[in-house]
């Protein structure tokens, strides 16, 4: 492959100036220069082939092992979508715990104790509305309540805001959690309320003005 080159092992780097008159116009610095570089054609050593293959192999393994399902939302390279599907149990929510958090909103009026404020905000504790028909209490929450209402023998005449459409816009789940909570806290004995039931009533009544107590009493 290599042509023998007599200068090969010559340590006269940047060879010393030539004094031939024929190159007087070419300056010494250029005259002593080695020829312009070119490539040799030594064949590629075999081990380079092995090395390249090995690196490609390692790179490929690395990608496969740490690909995290090529999921744009996976930030941990150990994430494996196939395992994730089998491992994940259906998400369990505790309606009482969720409801307790949501109660902060109600507590502003009905008080943290659920006892209300005499003459202004009716109590939720032992209230017949809370413990009674779920069809009524869901309607109160979805659309609100205004005008005179009798609770535990006392009459109130105020307005309760809507938490459904046109009001705070809470989801069926949220409404079911808060109602399940207030129906079971403080010794209340109402049955839990499912999101499905809330959805059913929401569908039936839609958005409307707040209920009056008599209207609700007509409903079972």
């Amino acid at each position, binding site marked *: 492959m290599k042509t023998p080159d007599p200068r090969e092992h010559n340590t006269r780097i940047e060879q010393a100036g030539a004094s031939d008159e024929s190159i007087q116009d070419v300056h010494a610095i250029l005259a002593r220069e080695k020829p312009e570089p070119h490539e*040799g054609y030594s064949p590629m050593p075999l081990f380079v082939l092995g090395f390249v293959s090995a690196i490609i192999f390692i790179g490929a393994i690395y990608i496969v092992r*740490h690909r995290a399902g090529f999921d744009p939302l996976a930030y941990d390279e150990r994430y494996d979508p196939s395992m994730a599907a089998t491992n994940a149990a259906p998400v369990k929510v505790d309606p009482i715990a969720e409801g307790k958090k949501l109660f902060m909103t109600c507590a502003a009026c009905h008080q943290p104790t659920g006892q209300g404020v005499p003459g202004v905000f009716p109590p939720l504790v032992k209230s017949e509305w809370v413990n009674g028909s779920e069809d009524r209490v869901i309607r109160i929450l979805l659309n609100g309540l205004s005008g005179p209402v009798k609770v535990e023998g006392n009459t109130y005449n105020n307005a309760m805001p809507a938490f459904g459409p046109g009001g705070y816009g809470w989801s069926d789940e949220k409404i079911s959690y808060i109602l399940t909570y207030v129906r079971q806290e403080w010794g209340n004995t109402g049955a839990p309320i499912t999101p499905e039931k809330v959805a059913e009533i929401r569908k039936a009544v839609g958005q409307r003005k707040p209920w009056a107590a008599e209207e609700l009493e007509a409903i079972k």
Partner: protein
Amino acid sequence: MASGTNLSESLNPATSSEAVKRAELSEIDASTKIPALFFLCSALGWILIGTIFALIASFKMHTPGFLGDAEWLTFGRVRTAHLNAVIYGWASNASFLVIIWLMARLSRSLLRHPILLLTAGVFWNVGVTIGIYGILTGDSTSIEWLEIPPYATPLLFVAYALMGVWAVIMFRFGKSPHIYVSQWYILAALFWFPWIYSVAQIMTIWAPARGTVQALVNWWFAHNVLGLWFTPIGLASVYYFLPKVLGKPIHSYYLSVLGFWSLAIFYNWAGVHHLVGGPVPAWVQTAGIAASIMMLIPVVVTGINHHMTMIGSFNALRYSPTLRFIVFGAVNYTLVSVIGSFMSLRGWAEITHFTQHTIAHAHHGLYAFFTMVMFGAIYYILPRLLLKEWPSAALISVHFWATAVGSLIMVLVLTVGGFHQGLLLNTPKLANTLGLQPGTDPVPFLEVVRVMNKYLVSRSLSGILIFVGHLAFAVNVVWMLLKPRSAEVTAPTLFRNPPEMEVVTR
């Protein structure tokens, strides 16, 4: 190129077609003189300014009160000014110098349109000056590697476009039938840089991409400045000067091809490894790390090619300044790249990321590899432009040893320091892995700062050493520019004269 095929030609270049070629080369060199000197002087100015900024920033790391009252020189500004001065000032100007000279020589044609180049040069340097002034007055864009404020960047872009147009013209009118490997790298770099620069400018500054995509573009760019701009220019120089000084061919054309294309394919993926552990989709990081692993291919292949060329000629390192700088750079190219591949691995990055280790790596690449290669190139080019010899071999020696030792100390100290820092910051985890009781975990942050002090002081010392080297270099260049040309036939300025030099009888 038929060098070495004809014995009489080899023995006496003066009477052969080689002589014609040399006459041609000397004309080509002469035609590059004005633009090449312009870029050389700019580069020289910037490396001095950049080093001063670097020293100020470095002192502040261990002596925070140093110049503490100067608003322009607060750490955030002066560090950024350092980075931009050495990247866009020194390294890019040096690259332009090498590009001009090599392109003209390798395409065997007289330099065309020097006006184009000079305009580009003026635009570039005015742009960088305004940019750095902007940074010092507080106008930095705060996007790493793209801190130059938007009112200066269009100047840089125009300069670059002119440069690219010029190179294409040169290549188009080139007379050389064979495209030498150095030319592949130069031409590719001249396309790659405007591409990455314009995309990064648009996606991070003019019309910023949202969210983490912006960070991705940022690091894709910052990493590619090294990989697709400085690395190709550095390698082009090694590929030219190594065989040139030794007078023997590059070991293998096939290795050159493999090295070039694997770099072209893998490098631009690798930048994401700067975001390992960040809020970027895991698979994108994985792709970046895999690309960093793949970078071992071009690095090792190129390393073998250079090593096989060098083999049998190591003795020459004792004489030739160019060769010594170039070989130092080439060896460090292999080292820094292999270390870089490992640094991208998650387990390693977990410790070293956001520590001084990264700083060590940056200087290893940009200084111990690229800058040293550029010095080597300049030692070869300048005598041919000025037709004078270097005035002082002693100054070259000072330059070499100060920069070589200085940069190695800096890299070593910060690499070790970075590991120390990372391990301390990670202590709860470390204690866990080592099975220790996590007693004093976590180490108070101030304690980590205190421990780092000795490393940072050593870094400043290495910086001073490097600065001394730069001064020696600057004195030598200016001296050379000013000294009169000798009428006699002169001998090259070498570290020591090889024995044969004394009996030149050709």
